[in-house]
């Protein structure tokens, strides 16, 4: 679009991979994601999910928000911004992190890519430019929205290392959360061993002009195992099984929450393992120290295994059958674990002391009527599914 004024004629943009995805999307099912149109299901959600767990899947990551952060102060700045110690993140590595406002409430989580000594890419769900810019005061750092500059593609599934090798990219030595670069048609393909499925998988980053050739190369290389394009419905099921959270699905960012009681701290979202109090000051540190010392967090974030076979989407949780103690945020019948799983906010201390047991109130819509179910639930460990193949280096063939 040359004349920027005409952007309103297509409020949802198409991604660099759209041409291929549109051709594959025989159901024509789309949903908006951060201003782009993205496929929810292309042919059949179960088949797509199965590709993630059985062979190889391609998922378009282009709409994910990406900020490029560079400058001599980048490490100090990111240490100030985020919860983890960025100085311990080696070049060509990635870590999963989160950041808070001054009250120690979560703004977002995301992956931080260290592409050089002073060059980073921060990938996340929501937009944060004002917060990132305000936090940068006093640091020699530059921050730019790079979302449109990089085409991202997620290749996930047990056969993905083999597919990449077949495509000419040897990833056998690439460990989880590491980055490698490969020449591709006169440019550079960046591959990170990261993903949102809890399975073996990689994320590929390329300049948008080479997105379609890359797509074609991978589809050809993966044809032997039935590589599939997948939509967000299949991916969401895989990510719940992996126990990953999604911003605005599992928590409301502190800068968006109209209702003050909806904001959550890292302690309340089970992200406190990220907090590095020893690294020096960071946004929200004082509030988080206080929360740690006074145990003032009101909520716990838990994984649930629920009786029966009906997904407990947005179920209200009870101690016994009448005291409300929480709320399911994400839920699914999990094909790979053969159980009804859920992620939930639970009011403390009921995460440890629900005397009447934890019950989920589920409304199953069956032929126009709700069937109301009260199902026993049990707190279990996350992830629900963690196959050894996700970490194996060198990775297996399947």
């Amino acid at each position, binding site marked *: 679009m040359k004349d920027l004024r005409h952007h*309103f004629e297509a*409020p949802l943009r198409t991604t660099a991979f759209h041409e291929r995805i549109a051709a594959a999307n025989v159901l024509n099912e789309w949903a908006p994601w951060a201003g782009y149109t993205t496929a929810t299901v292309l042919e059949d959600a179960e088949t797509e999910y199965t590709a993630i767990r059985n062979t190889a899947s391609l998922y378009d990551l282009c709409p994910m928000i990406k900020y490029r952060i560079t400058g001599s102060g980048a490490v100090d700045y990111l240490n100030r911004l985020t919860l983890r110690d960025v100085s311990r993140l080696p070049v060509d590595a990635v870590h999963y992190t989160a950041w808070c406002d001054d009250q120690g409430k979560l703004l977002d989580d995301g992956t931080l890519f260290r592409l050089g000594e002073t060059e980073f890419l921060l990938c996340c769900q929501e937009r944060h430019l004002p917060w990132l810019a305000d936090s940068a005061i006093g640091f020699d750092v530059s921050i730019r929205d790079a979302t449109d500059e990089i085409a991202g593609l997620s290749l996930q599934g047990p056969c993905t290392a083999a597919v990449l090798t077949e495509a000419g990219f040897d990833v056998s030595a690439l460990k989880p959360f590491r980055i490698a670069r490969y020449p591709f048609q006169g440019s550079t393909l960046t591959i990170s061993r990261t993903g949102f499925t809890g399975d073996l998988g990689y994320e590929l980053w390329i300049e948008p002009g080479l997105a379609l050739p890359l797509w074609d190369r991978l589809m050809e290389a993966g044809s032997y195992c039935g590589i599939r394009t997948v939509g967000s419905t299949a991916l969401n099921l895989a990510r719940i099984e992996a126990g990953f959270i999604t911003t605005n699905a599992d928590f409301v960012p502190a800068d968006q929450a109209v209702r*003050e009681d909806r904001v959550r701290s890292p302690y309340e979202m089970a992200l406190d393992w990220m907090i590095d109090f020893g690294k020096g000051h960071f946004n929200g540190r004082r509030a988080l120290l206080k929360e740690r010392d006074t145990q003032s967090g009101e909520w716990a974030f838990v994984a649930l295994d629920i009786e029966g076979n009906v997904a407990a989407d947005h179920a209200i949780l009870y101690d016994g059958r009448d005291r409300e103690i929480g709320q399911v945020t994400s839920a699914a019948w999990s094909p790979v674990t053969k159980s009804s799983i859920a992620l939930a906010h639970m009011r403390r201390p009921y995460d440890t002391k629900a005397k009447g047991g934890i019950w989920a109130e589920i409304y199953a819509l069956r032929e126009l009527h709700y069937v109301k179910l009260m199902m026993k639930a049990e707190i279990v460990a996350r992830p629900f599914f963690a196959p050894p193949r996700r970490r194996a280096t060198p990775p297996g063939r399947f």
Partner: protein
Amino acid sequence: MSYDAAIIGAGHNGLVAACYLARAGLKVVVVEKNDWIGGAAVSRELHPGFTYSNCSYVCSLFRPEIMRDLELPKYGLQVLPYEGGAVFTRDGGYLAIFRDHDANRREFARYSPRDAEAYDRYSRDIMRHCRFIRPLLMRTPPDPATFRPRDLAELAWLGRKVGEMSESQICDMIRFWTMSISDFLDEHFESPVIKAYLAVSAIIGTALGPMSPGSAYVLLHHYMGDVDGNVGAWGFARGGMGAITQALTASLRASGGEVRTGKGVEQVLVRNGRAVGLRLDGGEEIAAKRVLSNMDVKRTFLKHVDRDELPPDFTRRVERFKTRGSSGKLNIALDAAPHFPALPEGAPMLKGDLHFTDSVERMERAYDDWKAGRFSRDPFQDTMIPTMIDPTMAPPGKHFMSCFIQYAPPKIDGRDWTDADRDAFGQTVIDQIAEYSPGFKDRVLHAEIRTPRELEAEVGLTEGNIFQGELTFDQLLFNRPVPGYAQYKTPIRDLWLCGSSAHPGGGVMGAPGRNAAAEILRDTRAPTEMREAYAVV
């Protein structure tokens, strides 16, 4: 013949109050001085084939509970949401407003990528303030000076609401109520154009500039309405704003109420400290057990009630109640749609509010003229072409344009407006539009120009103040209009205020009329069908 209630003025609040009273079985008459119904929510045909929204021009604040209680949809009320909006810039560009969130973000990003991503947080802050204020609209403000159980209970309720907020939210709220919109916008945005667009709602109808403390609250007042649950959204009443008062009149008549037009009230009849009826122009008297005035507090007590019936302290406060007029209006019949070369072909921006002031600084300079007793040489406009959406208001292919203009002082250099002043004011506005729309002047078939003088003479708004009294914090809640008289009662028994001079203030909201009726019905213990305000979930 005697009525249970006589209401002065067939504006929206007078009619709302009348409808509720009539539905409760009271015998009700509404007296209107003009030959037409509507007050400032009126649609008139002043040029053949064109319907104007002569005064108020857009709808958002009118409470949906009232629409439903009084069955206004059944009597023809339809509200059509805006589809866009734009502010034109002096360099030939524009900033547009879109309903689509992503389109809006990209549009903001043309001016500032940072501002584009700051808008959600801004909206959240405004929404938080709305959630606190909105439930107050449909409640009688507590009087903090009494120890009546009801006032204490209401104060306790208010206290609990404050108690639900965090300390920082309470601080933010108090800052917001008292700060200027310019300072507030500076905390969120950097682009002058974006700030200019957003600042308008904070000064419409108010004799404040965008840099005046207290203007931020006025923004909130314009933000807490909704169109079908879409909070902050605005729309057009199909057929013009008169459609609201027409529907109210039909609803009133269906429950047996009367409306009499063409004769105004000369005096509220008071006997032994009680209102007992009205004397109309020409001498006819109407006996009534109670009188409700939809006129503003100044007009009611300084012009139509014997002064010796009133406590002097009350009268002095009424005299000092701020009703400084600040705005004027142009209603224009256009032979064809205006052409704005800056806008891309087929753009939806014309289907909403159009502004021609691209910085907060320029608005403040326009306010400087008001302070000096002049109309603004470079005014700001909140201009609409309702016929872009509403097919009923002009012949096909032709358009009605409504231009709300600020600033226009109640007096020019301390003297009354003259016809020449009015015409010069109108010309300034048309010239401003023509700067952005070549050929505009040739398309003008007819224009109705209204300054505070016309607003006062025709609608009865003292000094032309469209809110029947400014919405500054010293004149809100239990201080509106006068401390001790914020519960729709007045020093004269059985004389009630039901217009926008009373809580919660101006705009085509209907809440003052509804709340006044609620107080009266509580007094009379008449069975009433009035729903509670919808919960803010």
